[in-house]
């Protein structure tokens, strides 16, 4: 996956900005987070006969201007009004070490997560060091713009480039790895009940 160099990120902040038409993206396959990996018996028992994580692919495209990076995410699955839980998407980046995405990181290999959800403005920055461990993460300049187009969510997540304590490094000309998760609020999906990208994808930022 390439984050293409562009002149100014400001032209890409909206998911329907014209510039995105010229940015090649890709479909990242998703699968349900395995039931066996759900951290409590209650969650495993209550979902063993209920389908979840049925979003099969997430459209991803990315650009950066050397100062900030924008990632456009799109998938089909807009919850009907009145759902108890929000639709949500998260992207994960390794902070250091070689964390396993499926294990949500480890004590010495944290994962930095930027999470958007349909019932709140902006993004949440989270840090995870294992399943069920996520906590408020580093304060970082980031934002989101979302649009529901019929049954399709289109979200642009932006984050400043750079690296800092617990903020995953994201640098022009460098390669990192990225993972994704999607929750369908209308299906009561939350916590580990989600679709996720199985393993890391390479993310290369143009120099």
């Amino acid at each position, binding site marked *: 996956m390439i984050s293409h160099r562009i002149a100014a990120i400001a032209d890409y902040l909206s998911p329907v900005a014209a510039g995105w038409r010229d940015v090649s993206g890709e479909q990242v396959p998703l699968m349900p987070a395995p039931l066996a990996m759900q951290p409590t018996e209650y*969650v495993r028992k209550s979902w063993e006969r209920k389908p979840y994580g049925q979003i099969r692919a997430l459209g991803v495209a990315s650009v950066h201007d050397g100062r900030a990076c924008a990632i456009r995410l799109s998938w089909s699955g807009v919850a009907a009004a009145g759902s108890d839980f929000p639709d949500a998407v998260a992207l994960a980046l390794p902070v250091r070490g070689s964390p396993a995405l499926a294990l949500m990181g480890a004590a010495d290999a944290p994962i930095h997560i930027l999470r958007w959800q349909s019932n709140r403005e902006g993004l949440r920055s989270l840090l995870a060091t294992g399943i069920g461990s996520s906590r408020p993460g580093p304060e970082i300049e980031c934002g989101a713009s979302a649009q529901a187009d019929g049954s399709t969510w289109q979200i642009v997540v932006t984050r400043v480039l750079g690296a800092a304590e617990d903020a995953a490094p994201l640098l022009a000309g460098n390669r990192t790895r990225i993972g994704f998760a999607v929750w369908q609020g209308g299906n009561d999906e939350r916590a580990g009940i989600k679709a996720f990208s199985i393993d890391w994808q390479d993310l290369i930022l143009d120099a």
Partner: protein
Amino acid sequence: MSKRQVAMVMDLNKCIGCQTCTVACKRLWTREEGMSHMLWNTVNSQPGRGTPHGYEDMGGGFKDGVAQPGRRPALADYGKAWEFNYEEAFFGGAANTPLIPQGGDPGEGPNHDEDVGAGEYPNSYFFYLPRICNHCTHPACLEACPRRAIEKREEDGIVLIDEDRCSGYRFCQEACPYKKIYYNELRGVAQKCIFCFPRIDRGVTTACSRQCPGRVRFVGYLDDPAGPIHKLVHQYQVALPLHAEYGTQPNVFYVPPISPERYGADGVANGEMRIPLEYLEYLFGKRVHQALALLIDEREKNRKGEKSELMDLLIARDWIKMFGPFDRHPRSIEQVQATA
């Protein structure tokens, strides 16, 4: 496993359904925004659907030690916190203005079955059932939470939600078979009875127990042989858990109600209890028969002028002893803080 377990016994023979406990709790803990539907303490007429309405059919708990799926109560299941036209009815100047709930369809109030009861006259019956979080020994809420946001305190077994860790996933609500966990939509966190732990930590009993005009509630440690809880639960075994079959080992216990005798077709009392024993067994299990038999025996002893430690304990002549080691006056705590 907690080192000790603080517990409560409620004597259903003395509850008059005045809701003072409910109000004491409400004023102390659930007056903030997002908490209007929360009654950490409820008192319901039984038989009835309880609060949230129909909670006994919402699942959760454990069966043969295995966690059971449950459902989250909807906001309407708790009953609306009705607003009334006080200004108009009391000060509007018009005669015969009724006091009515505002805001369209009022729905069902929290204690919607109030005093409805069951049975046909002259054998109609009901009793009151107060409920709080059971601070279970095997808490389904704690075990369900993927965030590990719920803890059971080691020193006294009080079950608490860490609101900083809670992400509002509400698995705890589904898993609790008593449906005594509430969701604060504004803050996005689960909240529930905290057994007044800031008071307990300072030797003051819970607000619901201390404010109870009926002297219904005993508080203390389960393992304290000198305290009322141990005597009622373990020594006399007249205090029983509600729906023990839910598998969570609740630490709130109930002295079951002895009811008046039924009248036969001839209009003569026939010695049978008016509240069907099957219903009490449904709530409190098979041990309810033994508990009721002992309560009736001890009551008879008392009537004959014989000494009954059990009756003296239940009558609670010495009110402050109902609270075991938690006998400090709350005002004494304020004084400590003021001089600190």
